[in-house]
């Protein structure tokens, strides 16, 4: 029996990916986790970053998640992301713009609320840019 597990990546708006994989890497809050089949049950939060899966034929696929929850059962992995997109669909220019916007917003902090939001946006934009860089390197 080959060692595989089922993975579901869903975002609040739509289902992103559902299928059989052999490995999966996800950006957990405490550091990146690598998951192989028959992993112990685990629940953790995700931070913005790249989710990478290895398909049965050895192909890699990347997704960008903007935070969420990761649930691991021995043969089922569920990623409930707040919003997820295929990494290839990330618009690099838009991500850079968002980063600049967030930095500008942080520079003139008017209230704590604005600051917190700008910070969250900045983290997300940086994570997006990182994902694109990784993706480029691999190609």
């Amino acid at each position, binding site marked *: 029996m080959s060692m595989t597990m089922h993975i579901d990546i869903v975002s*609040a708006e*739509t*289902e992103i990916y559902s299928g059989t994989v052999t490995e999966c890497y996800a950006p957990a809050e*405490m550091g990146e986790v690598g998951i192989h089949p028959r992993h112990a*049950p*685990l629940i953790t*939060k995700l931070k913005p970053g790249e989710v990478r899966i290895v398909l049965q034929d050895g192909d890699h696929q990347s997704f960008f998640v903007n935070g969420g*929850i990761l649930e691991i059962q021995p043969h089922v992995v*569920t990623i*409930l992301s707040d919003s997820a997109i295929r990494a290839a669909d990330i618009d690099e220019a838009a991500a850079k713009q968002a980063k600049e916007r967030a930095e500008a917003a942080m520079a003139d902090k008017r209230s704590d609320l604005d600051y917190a939001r700008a910070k969250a946006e900045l983290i997300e934009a940086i994570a997006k840019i990182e994902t694109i860089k990784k993706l480029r390197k691999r190609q």
Partner: protein
Amino acid sequence: MAGAKEIRTKIKSIQNTAKITKAMEMVAASKMRKAQDRMRSSRPYADKIRNVLAHLAQAHPEYRHPYLSDREEVKRVGYIIVSTDRGLCGGLNTNMFKAAVRDMMEWDDQGVEVDVVAIGRKALSFFGRFKCNLVAEADHLGDSPSMEDLIGTVKVMLDAYDAGRIDRLFLVHNLFINTMTQQPRIHQMVPVGGDVDKELEHHWDYIYEPEAKHIIDGLMFRFIESQVYQGLVENIACEMSARMVAMKSATDNAGEIVKELQTIYNKARQAAITQEISEIVSGAAAV
């Protein structure tokens, strides 16, 4: 011919109304398709998060979330009522409000007070007049609502639950069965009614990273949010199909009335002609 002219104007005005209802039907039909797609595409998230929560209910964490355990004494209950912003969609809202009010009356008979959160303008105007405690509202969410629009209103109720002001929380919305059928649904959200099968209960637990409380709290909040969101998108799909059906029958009815009026008009015209001829003939005969 005075009667004939009146009938002609009437026919014209009914034809104009039919044009409007026809246009509304077509608009609703195209919106319905989009609304149904949206409903279907957000279902996986709602299903998956329910699965995760069901697993969690079977696990034995050292921390048990308040949303998972029933409170014995119920003094006050909360309702989140999802309705449409606009009318002209048949009995969709009325049926749902009736079901909700019936449910509230049962609580009322037991001496339990009721808090209401209204989502959508129709619920706001209905429950604004109704004798109940309206604590929050959200309207003008549009046809493609986003999760952020809901967070505030949902939080009001969850805070009330946390503070012990309410002991149960229900969600009322229309359930989309198919284009022709929609059904009001009242669904208990908190405490989460998990039918945990005792036989299947395993003595295992998750590894939590970081600590359990943090994650379970986050998961619970997301779960409730996704339930309300799913209710809302489902209600929009219901609204569009109900409107389409209502407008279609309005157009059909208008067509029938026009047909009837046309017959009456033809008869009146014929009678007028016959009368005129007989007048001429009798006039000629008299000469």
